[in-house]
């Protein structure tokens, strides 16, 4: 412990503070009025359904985790090609990621009826309750991540032995990356499973309820309506919680690993570089708490004032972290602290710009979505063509911002020196930009998680037949959530791209460390094959020398094949998840039809539908359908590694990153734009509700549902999970690759 700077202790202390505030907000929410008996009953149905789903999901994911842990244990202790800490780090990452989602979901299901009840008093009261409940998830995610990171850092620092302290730090940070794999895998299951559940229920409820039976949304006569509300919690809340836990932890861990590699020659600076992302995350969390308290409005505030209050919180904490990070980086003794600070600012700016671009392409206040709505006049086919077209065009700004952000953060950190020997430092700058982007996750996630809570509050108000002014307020809260969520999405998407980029470099570092575990006779052959004479030579090789040794260039067919497969993986994964939603929705359609047929009195409101059965169907379908796409994300990098070795894997990861990122943006934006094109028509344009244009837009929205809520958000995790898997099995790749 003596080597750790005292300032590091801020990280675990912050995690405790974040969790304490989360608990405080949770208790505050639990103590508020639950509303009428009907409101309590409906919330109870949703809570029970969500809990049943998560319990079932965690059982299946638990089995997968046990199997993979056993494989890792065998690789580490049997074959000796992996560090012995990996199985444990992998398990804890998965556990905490799941826990973050679970707490978020638990809070959201308690908050929905309370937020509806608060909205019956005033818009302001509704916003405060929903936002503070969202803050529970934001703070739980960052609190658990910082706790997990700091505890593992302390454990590994105490137990990992290495004569060379700089190499020890390199080993520690790369071991810690494997808990990122656990978090990524858990997040992928949560996003894919939750996404399939929520969209199967949503599409099933819409197709039979709205289209066949003409029942409005959230009508209690629709058997799938509770499953639909459960889906909002397991997909949008639990899935998002696990996802952002993984993004947050992943960005810090990847940057720490890059820092350890970039400052290999100076032990003191190396340690500073390792703890810098943790400290930026910690201070960002404290400032997020400050930002949460800055969200204040007067009673009777209107929508504009509420939006202003939320923006004050988000912008306030972003501004404060911009100032604070300058002092953190200066205090840690970096020579190029100004350059690193500029990278943090670049990260924050990139996130904000991507958020603005997302808003432009998905909000019906702007032309792209209005253009899609206009296409509805000529039917569903043109709506779908228009949505796909606008979605594809919408990829331009985020890619441009990420590209510029990458170059700027690289340039700022290296002093605009793009020579080969600055590569590690430049990549560290990119990592720091990603950390800067996510530093205020505590509050940005609060505004993101607040959306589904407000949405569920609206559903509860609807089913409980609350007066129209309450429903109008919950609708307003929901609309507010959609706008703030655009910014949150920008941060999530941008950070995923930057983190994945940084992780590519970590992959190379992991290979170097893997050499230490490989049996001597095998190692000689491996090193000889790539032109290194000794392990030391390989481990001291720069990134560029390493790339040359493994022939990682575009003329190498292994790289090209990997690239093709990487891009294909993004499409294959989307196809599988989209088809999964289609199949699961068809089970739901059959069940809803059956209930209407066999339970007499549903339509008259005399008999209650079997809500639990629909929840069961969605649960079963989601569990069944999520296994193949999630398994592919684990199996393909291992298989490519075994077949094509390091060049193939790097090609795969590069292809998946470039192809997957663009596809993810396209799917998320097209889905969001279709949804809002429908809302634009419902507001009274182009014929309004019930018109043929509206009908066409509803079809577009249904197509877009799995785009924006299942496949699109899962792609970011897929990209990172494949990289994490490659990092974890790097030892296997270099030892057993065939070609």
């Amino acid at each position, binding site marked *: 412990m003596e080597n750790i700077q005292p300032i590091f202790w801020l990280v675990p202390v912050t995690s405790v503070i974040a969790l304490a505030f989360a608990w405080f907000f949770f208790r505050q929410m639990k103590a508020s009025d639950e509303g009428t008996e009907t409101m309590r009953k409906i919330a109870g149905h949703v809570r029970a359904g969500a809990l049943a789903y998560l319990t079932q999901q965690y059982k299946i994911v638990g089995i997968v985790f046990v199997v993979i842990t056993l494989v890792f244990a065998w690789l580490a202790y049997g074959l000796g090609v992996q560090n012995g800490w990996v199985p444990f780090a992998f398990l804890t990452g998965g556990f905490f990621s799941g826990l973050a989602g679970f707490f978020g979901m638990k809070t959201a299901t308690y908050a929905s009826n309370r937020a509806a009840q608060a909205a019956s008093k005033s818009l302001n009261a509704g916003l405060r309750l929903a936002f503070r409940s969202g803050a529970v998830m934001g703070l739980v995610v960052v609190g658990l991540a910082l706790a997990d990171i700091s505890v593992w850092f302390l454990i590994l620092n105490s137990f990992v032995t290495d004569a060379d302290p700089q190499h020890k730090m390199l080993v520690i940070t790369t071991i810690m990356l494997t808990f990122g794999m656990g978090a990524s895998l858990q997040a992928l299951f949560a996003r894919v499973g939750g996404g399939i559940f929520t969209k199967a229920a949503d599409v099933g409820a819409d197709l039979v309820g*709205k289209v*066949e*039976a*003409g*029942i*409005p949304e959230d*009508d209690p*006569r629709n058997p799938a309506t509770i499953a639909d509300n459960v889906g909002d919690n397991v997909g949008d809340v639990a899935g998002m919680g696990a996802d952002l836990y993984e993004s947050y932890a992943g960005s810090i861990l990847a940057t720490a690993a890059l820092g350890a590699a970039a400052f290999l020659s100076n032990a003191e600076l190396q340690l500073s570089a390792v703890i810098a992302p943790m400290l930026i995350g910690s201070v960002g969390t404290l400032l997020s708490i400050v930002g949460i308290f800055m969200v204040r409005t007067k009673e009777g505030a209107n929508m504009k004032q509420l939006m202003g209050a939320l923006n004050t919180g988000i912008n306030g904490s972003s501004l404060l972290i911009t100032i604070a990070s300058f002092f953190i980086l200066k205090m840690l003794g970096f020579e190029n602290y100004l350059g690193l600070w500029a990278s943090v600012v670049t990260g924050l700016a990139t996130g904000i710009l991507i958020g603005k671009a997302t808003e432009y392409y998905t909000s019906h206040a702007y032309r792209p979505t209005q253009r899609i709505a206009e296409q509805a006049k000529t039917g569903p086919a043109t709506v779908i063509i228009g949505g796909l077209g606008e979605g594809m065009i919408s990829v331009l700004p985020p890619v441009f911002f990420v590209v510029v952000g990458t170059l700027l953060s690289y340039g700022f950190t290296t002093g605009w020196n793009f020579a080969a020997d600055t590569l590690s430092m430049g990549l560290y700058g990119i990592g720091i930009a990603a950390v800067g982007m996510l530093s205020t996750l505590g509050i940005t996630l609060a505004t993101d998680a607040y959306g589904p809570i407000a949405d569920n509050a609206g559903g509860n108000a609807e089913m409980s*037949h609350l*007066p*129209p002014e309450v429903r109008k307020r919950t609708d307003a809260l929901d609309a507010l959530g959609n706008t703030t969520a655009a910014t949150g999405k920008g941060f999530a998407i941008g950070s995923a791209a930057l983190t994945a980029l940084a992780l590519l470099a970590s992959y190379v570092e992991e290979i170097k460390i893997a050499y230490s575990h490989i049996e001597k006779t095998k190692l000689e052959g491996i090193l000889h094959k790539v032109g290194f004479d000794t392990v030391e030579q390989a481990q001291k090789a720069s990134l560029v020398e390493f790339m040359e040794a493994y022939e990682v260039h575009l003329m190498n067919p292994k790289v090209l094949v990997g690239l093709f497969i990487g891009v294909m993986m993004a499409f294959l994964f989307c196809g599988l998840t989209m088809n999964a939603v289609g199949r699961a929705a068809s089970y739901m359609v059959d069940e809803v*039809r059956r209930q*209407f*047929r*066999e339970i*007499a009195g*549903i*339509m*008259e409101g005399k008999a209650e539908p079997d809500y639990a059965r629909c929840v069961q169907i969605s649960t079963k379908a989601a569990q069944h359908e999520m296994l193949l796409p999630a398994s592919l994300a684990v199996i393909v990098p291992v298989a490519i590694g075994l077949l094509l070795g390091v060049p193939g894997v790097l090609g795969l990861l590069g292809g998946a990153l470039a192809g997957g990122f663009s596809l993810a943006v396209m799917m998320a934006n097209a889905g969001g734009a279709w949804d809002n094109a429908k809302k634009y028509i419902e507001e*009274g*344009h*182009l*014929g*309004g*509700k*019930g*018109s*043929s*244009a*509206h*009908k066409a837009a*509803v079809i577009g929205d249904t197509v877009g549902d799995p785009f924006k809520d299942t496949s699109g958000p899962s792609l970011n995790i897929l990209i990172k999970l494949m990289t994490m898997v490659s990092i974890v099995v790097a030892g296997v790749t270099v030892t057993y690759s065939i070609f």
Partner: protein
Amino acid sequence: MEKYLYLSLIPESLIASQLPPEEFGNYYAVGTRKRSRGQAIFFEVEPGFPSEGISWDVMEQRTVPHPDGRLKRSVYLSVYRVLERVPLEALKKLYLVTDDGRVLGLDKAEYLQDATRSLHLYQEFCPMTPRVVSNLAPQEFCKQITNPANSISVPKIVFCELALEKLARDPEATEIGDLPYRNIGHLRDCLRELLTKTDKTTKQVDRALSGEVLYRTVKNGFFVGDGEDMLYYPLPPREQLEREYYEWWRSALTTFID
């Protein structure tokens, strides 16, 4: 056991039932199990009025519970030229049923004609179902269409006025965002023709009602009349529908026109 008599407009038929209006409306729209779906508009009628071809004995004899005790839901008494045989005095409330079975009952009220002159869009429901534009106010329109002296007339008519918003004064108006009608260009042509041909009082827009009526487009209410006599069933204002009849209103908004 109480018996009810209903005059359905879609399609035109006289039906006896043991179900009270709300239950009948729900049953009529969606059946006993959710296998069908369809909008319905019907009057509750006071039985016993003198009319050729309608047998009250049949109603008495057949409108009895099933052997297992279930109430008889529908006994069709007549299906052809029914409206003309039902006197206006026998008509009680008018019920509007959404396609998923939500029922709204409308009471009669006095119709106060709007003094300002404008163009009108009428949807006829019975005995025929064309959609027409007219420069006649509802009372004048009713009189004209039921005047036997005219070469084209019907004995009695049920219709409603549909919203035209700015088109009511200016067929070229561009701000018509919330009007869901198909082929707005054709509607404009019809309105222009009424403005330019001073001798023309009505112009057919659609030959028959296809699909369903969007209740949200009903401007003021429903009319039923023959000659000088006309009954008016006003639709409550939107604010009242949202507050007091929210379930019906929400369901009405969910309906799609094909």
